[in-house]
């Protein structure tokens, strides 16, 4: 088990390096002058030269790269071009809002998705199964931002059950709609996956053994089948984080949610390259870190890996 964890941790390091390098390449070796992009071709040549020197863009590309790597290793993600705010502090002030949103959505999606998927599998071809699976495939197919807007329309503007856009005082009622919006996709994916995994597990020989022991149906499902069926479901939580972060970009812009997704859209619109660079690196690192956790917990869930 220890060597399994160590292997996973060690493998993350080259991927991390790759992520940083790709971000650097995309931002710095694009056709055109990054400073010109940022300033939008305004400003005279002297100003541009000064910005270039401030950002170290006049140095050879290799040197820039090494400086960037060294900065990242120190945990320094750079400084915003727009307002001179350090990127890491900009992320820190918005982290809590995004964490709340993403965690809420993931929790909602997983609980709802697993419940719907398991019931669908146990009651295969029932009305519930058809209904739930139709809702699930619709949920995967609907654009996140459109779902968010419809929820706003119904629950905030027509029924007036919840406040509209904004973070408000940070209380739960402001979180409800964004959380549901962002949770639709994970819920739908989890429901589809749980159903197919559960069906697969229920047809296994060891389930027949469990029934032959005289266990009641719910014990067979909840104890013997559940543990096996949930292994793949846990592993996709890692992948979900990536789509959650993508979805957060859209959800936060609809709901004027002061999180990292919103920060990234704002900096993209302002062509604030250091900020974009920092946010992308931060999100990729978050993804790698959660996947590392998922891989480790996978080892705990599946004894076949634990004793490898």
């Amino acid at each position, binding site marked *: 088990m220890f060597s399994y964890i160590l292997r996973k941790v060690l493998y993350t390091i*080259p*991927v991390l390096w*790759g*992520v940083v390098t*790709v971000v650097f390449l*995309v*931002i710095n070796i*694009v*056709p*055109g002058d*990054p400073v010109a*992009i940022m300033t939008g071709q305004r400003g005279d040549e002297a100003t541009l030269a000064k910005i270039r020197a401030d950002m170290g863009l006049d140095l050879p590309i290799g040197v820039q790269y090494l400086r960037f790597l060294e900065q990242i290793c120190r945990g320094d993600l750079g400084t915003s071009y727009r307002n001179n705010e350090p990127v890491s502090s900009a992320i820190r002030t918005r982290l809590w809002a995004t964490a709340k949103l993403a965690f809420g959505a993931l929790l909602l999606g997983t609980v709802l998705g697993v419940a719907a998927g398991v019931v669908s599998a146990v009651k295969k071809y029932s009305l519930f199964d058809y209904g739930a699976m139709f809702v699930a*495939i*619709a949920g*995967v*197919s*609907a*654009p*996140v*931002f*459109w779902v968010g*807007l*419809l929820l*706003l*329309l119904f629950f905030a*503007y027509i029924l007036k059950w919840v406040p*509209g856009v904004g973070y408000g005082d940070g209380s739960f009622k402001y979180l409800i709609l964004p959380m549901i919006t962002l949770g639709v996709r994970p819920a739908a994916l989890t429901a589809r996956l749980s159903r197919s995994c559960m069906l697969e597990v229920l047809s296994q020989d060891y389930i027949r053994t469990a029934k032959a022991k005289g266990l009641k149906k719910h014990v067979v499902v909840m104890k013997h089948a559940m543990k096996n069926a949930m292994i*793949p479901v846990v*592993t*996709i939580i890692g*992948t979900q984080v*990536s*789509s959650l*972060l*993508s*979805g957060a*970009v*859209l959800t936060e*812009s*609809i709901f004027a949610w002061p999180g990292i997704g919103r920060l*990234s*859209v704002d900096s*993209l*619109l302002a*062509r604030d*390259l250091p900020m*974009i660079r920092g*946010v*992308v690196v931060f*999100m*990729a690192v978050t*993804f*790698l870190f959660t996947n590392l956790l998922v891989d480790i917990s996978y080892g705990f869930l599946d004894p076949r890996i634990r004793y490898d």
Partner: protein
Amino acid sequence: MTENGNNNDSGVTGNLWYEAWLRFRRNRLAMLGFFMIAALLGVAVFAPRLAPYDPFKQLLWTEGIKAKLAAPSPDHWMGTDAYGRDIMSRVIHGSRLSLQIGLLATVVSLLIGVPLGAMAGYFGGWVDDLISWFINVIFAFPFMLFVLAIVAVLNNPSMIVVFTAIGLVSWVSIARVTRAQFMSLREREYVEAAKAIGLPTWTILFKHILPNTLAPVIVQATLGIGSIILTEAGLAFLGFGAQPPAPSWGLMISDGQQYLATGQWWWALFPGMAIMYTVLAFNFLGDGLRDALDVRLKR
């Protein structure tokens, strides 16, 4: 096992595809997806004839102020927008844009993903390590944000940039599927036999293995079209995709969103339904193909 080893024989392959077609035809959801896409293609091809109005024409000039933000009516089934443009005509024309991006980005991702996945799976060793590493690196980025960053940095939200950027990110899932297929196929007896009689590597790769990897790749690509269309809509919604006055579904939702609070729901509603219809159709088709071709995708 000799019959299985003989997969390359065109007769056998033909039969396998024919059987798959029979299974596909029996799958009701798959057929639904198939007809939904056929209908959509029809709409896209005949858009100028089907659309009741010119999608760019601001009817304020001809019909007066009542054509501004008109609710759905027999004249304008989906209403009009704040510029007095007929929303239904714009939704119909929008299908062209969505399908084009969906197909072109898929082509880009296939062109990158299939060769890289094939090399990783077939050669193994350091080639596999290197390509797998690269796949994991790209996979670590949130899809949407990475595409946004590429488009923003290129500072040029033209269609070519949008579909290339999406393709540059979405090839990873194609590469993963291709790699897994090549890995399992290179151990098969008929490939060993081809190697033993001294066929060149490229002949083995393209003539003997590639045809047998098609099914999972087709399924993955079909399912991918849906998420590509969603990504394109998201880009346009945030202002990084199609630019006004293009009749892009994502852009229309973006323009219409501010009118939701004041009760003009139709501007944002109908384009969203069009996106959902399209993505749903590709998902039905992908699921159906997966069942018909008997493909098991790893995640």
